[in-house]
């Protein structure tokens, strides 16, 4: 590269430009320094005991608010917390115990409510059973609370809470958590008190009530003895009652009426004027009253619950004056078989639906052996949104218009037929695949395009739904663009200019974009290859080549010739050298008319001229040419062997020429004369040898 730039002004300018470009590239200035993140691999590990303790407090708050689901969700996130290794196990225990306690509190709370109802109704057997369950739950709750208390204590130790100063955030957070734990204990104690007070029956001593100052375990133990006492009370001093129930018929259609009757007695005596509750699946449904014989009867309409079986029971519990005299009683469960018509609903939708287009939903009811209804209302929902309603008997077909902006992908179509009389509700759903129709492009384009010129492109745009009309087609070829709109049959005819460029022959990408305003079509982008022949560039290149072939050899000959034209100075006219004789018909005499100006030039030029003539002659005679890697002297020695006597003269002449070529020696007229003589001698010797 240095050689290229050496001594050349153009080269140095070019090199300077390159250097400037490089320097501009290298010395770019910094734009901004910002630190939007840190390396997590080397980030400092920092725990926050305060946050952990306060998070625990928040969880226990939810427990106290009786929101066990939310508390469970909150505690379920603890595995993602940044917790020291020595607290992971404790935190896990805390979470488990808190979650368990939350559920137990809810169970106890609900159980106490039921217990209150049972005791109010003097259903002492059921109350005793429930009390046992609640008692067990209380025991578990206290156990879990004990675990929580222990976990709080360990956490405090590990986080060195007790070495923190009073009033510090850490100490406050710990105290807040301990406070929550105390409040929960208070809640459990309150539940215990409620249970004990519920077990106390008005006007009856069932044993001494446990003191709230006792430990949970002794409280539970005392509670067990209370429950045992309650069970024994069911025999003395209250009177037992008995109630039975019959229904007719035992199997009815939903909505039909059923007759019921039964008798309420106590120790074999009828109880008159008492209210009897008829329970359907344990819920009060209707009330009847006993007559003087303790007999009660009535008619109930089977509710429109489309379930095959309903449990029916009669319940008596003492009210008003009966309280403290009689105990409650429940009849045996009577099963009522409920009959209703069921149907299977099958819905079908097209495999593809398109935004902004209508899609048809088809549904068929199969009622099996049941009689079909006259008409049935059917509601259609798209992703839980009501879209259409139709009245049908067994089959329906409904079109729904999909919104243009509906997202692509899977959507849910739900069809619901609400319950109607003896017909149960039917719900069916299916997946509707919303997509867009892909555009297909058939295109006719020339295989080869000449530049300059235009390309005529014909084509047809269609999709799986048929031809696409009114769609825009955008064509782009290099910098040329064209836009057309498809006709009714989806065809189009476009013309795009083939722009000029630097290429000669080659392929170019023809970019085609097709899109429709109709929302159900997906846009299309496609690329086709077109062979381009740039006539202008090809012609220009051809002209250049022709001109070069004409002028380049002459120019090169001038530039690479032995003499430089500008250095030829005609100082004194020199005698013309003698024309070399013709030695044979096969050899050609060097052309004396080549450039006679050199013959008349300076001695150096004349010696060189003579040497060139002799060299040509020697080359013709010996049929040898001077290779580029051989010096003139080496060639002269090699050729001289074949020339005979003329060889010596040729070597001498060559040495003279080399001296002129590679030294600063300026030849004299004598040297020129000597050169001429040597040339002449060589020619004569060769003639004498019959060459």
């Amino acid at each position, binding site marked *: 590269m240095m050689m290229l730039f050496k001594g050349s002004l153009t080269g140095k300018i*070019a090199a300077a430009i390159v250097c400037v470009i490089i320097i501009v*590239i*290298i010395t770019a200035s*910094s734009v901004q320094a910002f630190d*939007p*993140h840190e390396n997590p691999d080397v980030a400092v590990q920092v725990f926050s005991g305060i946050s952990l303790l306060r*998070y625990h407090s928040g969880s226990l708050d939810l427990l106290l608010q009786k929101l066990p689901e939310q508390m469970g969700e909150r505690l379920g996130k603890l595995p993602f917390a940044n917790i020291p290794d020595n607290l992971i196990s404790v935190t896990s225990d805390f979470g488990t115990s808190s979650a368990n306690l939350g559920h137990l509190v809810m169970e106890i709370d609900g159980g106490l409510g039921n217990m209150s109802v049972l005791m109010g109704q003097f259903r002492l057997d059921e109350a005793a059973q429930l009390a046992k369950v609640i008692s067990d739950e209380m025991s578990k709750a206290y156990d879990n609370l004990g675990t929580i208390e222990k976990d709080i204590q360990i956490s405090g130790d590990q986080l060195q809470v007790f070495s923190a100063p009073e009033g510090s955030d850490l100490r406050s957070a710990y105290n807040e958590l301990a406070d929550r734990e105390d409040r929960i204990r208070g809640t459990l104690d309150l539940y215990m008190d409620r249970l004990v007070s519920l077990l106390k029956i008005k006007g009856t001593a069932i044993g001494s009530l446990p003191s709230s100052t006792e430990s949970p375990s002794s409280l539970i133990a005392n509670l067990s003895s209370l429950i045992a006492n309650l069970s024994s009370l069911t025999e003395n001093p209250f009177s037992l009652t008995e109630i039975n129930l019959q229904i007719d018929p035992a199997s009815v259609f939903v909505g039909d009426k059923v007759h019921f009757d039964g008798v309420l007695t106590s120790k074999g005596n009828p109880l008159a004027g008492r209210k009897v509750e008829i329970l359907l699946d344990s819920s009060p449904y209707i009330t009847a009253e006993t007559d003087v014989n303790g007999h009660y009867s009535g008619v109930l309409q089977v509710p429109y619950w489309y379930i095959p079986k309903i449990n029916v029971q009669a319940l008596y519990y003492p009210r008003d004056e009966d309280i403290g005299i009689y105990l409650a009683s429940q009849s045996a469960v009577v099963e009522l078989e409920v009959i209703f018509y069921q149907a299977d609903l099958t819905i079908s939708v097209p495999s593809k639906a398109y935004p902004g287009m209508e899609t048809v939903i088809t549904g068929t009811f199969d009622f099996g052996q049941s009689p079909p209804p006259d008409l049935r209302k059917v509601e259609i929902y798209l992703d839980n949104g009501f879209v259409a309603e139709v009245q049908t008997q067994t089959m329906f077909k409904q079109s729904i218009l999909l919104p243009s902006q509906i997202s692509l992908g899977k959507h849910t179509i739900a069809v619901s037929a609400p319950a109607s009389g003896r017909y149960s509700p039917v719900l069916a759903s299916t997946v509707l695949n919303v997509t867009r129709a892909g555009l297909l492009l058939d295109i006719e384009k020339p295989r080869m395009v000449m530049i300059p010129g235009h390309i005529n492109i014909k084509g047809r745009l269609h999709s799986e739904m048929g031809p696409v009309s009114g769609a825009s087609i955008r064509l782009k070829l290099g910098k040329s663009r064209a836009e057309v709109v498809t006709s009714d049959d989806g065809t189009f005819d476009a013309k795009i200019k083939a722009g000029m460029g630097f290429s000669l022959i080659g392929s170019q990408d023809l970019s085609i974009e097709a899109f429709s305003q109709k929302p159900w079509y997906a846009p299309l982008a496609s690329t086709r290859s077109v062979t381009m022949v740039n006539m202008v560039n090809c012609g220009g290149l051809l002209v250049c080549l022709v001109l070069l072939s004409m002028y380049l050899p002459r120019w090169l000959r001038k530039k690479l010739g032995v003499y430089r034209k500008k250095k030829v100075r005609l100082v004194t006219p020199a005698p013309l050298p003698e024309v070399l004789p013709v030695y044979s018909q096969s050899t050609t005499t060097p052309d004396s008319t080549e450039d006679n100006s050199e013959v008349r030039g300076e001695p150096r030029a004349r010696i060189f001229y003579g040497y060139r003539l002799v060299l040509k002659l020697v080359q013709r005679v010996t049929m040898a040419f001077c290779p580029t890697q051989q010096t003139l002297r080496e060639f002269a020695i090699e050729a001289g062997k074949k020339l005979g006597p003329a060889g010596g003269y040729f070597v001498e002449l060559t040495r003279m020429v080399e001296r002129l070529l590679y030294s600063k020696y300026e030849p004299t007229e004598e040297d020129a004369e000597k050169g001429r003589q040597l040339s002449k001698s060589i020619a004569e010797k060769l003639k004498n040898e019959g060459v």
Partner: protein
Amino acid sequence: MRASNIMFAVVLLTLVVSLLCIWFYPTVQDFMANNSMWNGLKHFSSSTGAKNIDALDALPALPENTALIVIPYLKISDGEMAKTKDFVENGGTLLLMDDYGYGNSLLEYLGTNIRFSTKPLLDPLFCYKNQRLPKITDFTSDVKESHVSVVTLNHATALTGVGQSQAIAWSSTTSFLDTDGNESWDQGEPKGPLTVMAESHLGKGTLVVIADPSIIINSIVGLDDNYRLVEFLISRNGEPKDIMIDRSNLPKDTIDVSKLRLQSARDAFSSPFALIGIVALIFLVVSRFTFRKGELLG
């Protein structure tokens, strides 16, 4: 050889070596696709096949199957904002990831009420190592269904002005916005849960706003479910999309600017005009050299 020529050769050699160093030396600048260090995007770019663009002119005319990730740490010009808006309205998916940059100007231009709070979101409990690396565990049901349960952020912020139906992810209840910068919660500072990701439909396209661009850097993208979440946000309907990462609005270090200029220079020299010029220059220099040799040889 003359002294001036030797000097010239030394300078030229130095410059060429410098160019080679620039070309091959790895960048360490934030969010650069060829940065394989902890703060680069090389892993994300290579795993998703994302294409890096240095100008929004490279956005496709039909962007429906394209997701563009913009991290606006430099001021966005009006022209760029217009192009971004066109991109979204024509059906593209724009993932605008920012924390303390210029994202709000783009959001304002796009006509949505969502904004970046530009204050640090800290979470002392649900975090990776420290509170500046908060963990997100609350997502909408569709995100959870795509098996995303926890995501780690890095020096994130929170979003404001997010509608109920727009929110995608929230920080924990122990998180807070550190508005006064003292790294602890003070009275009046917003407490969690705070929205950190949101989605809005604009025209035919979708705008996804994420309050932390670091979610995709090499050291974070592999943590927890970060990659899965970004993948889900890019292709919500399960359709694979071409991903483009806009580099034009990212701050660049000297080496990055040099690399980009070098790349631009290479691209420029690849153009027909430049090629012709180079060929002509080489021809001229070589011819001159040849002629001079010819003259010397006589």
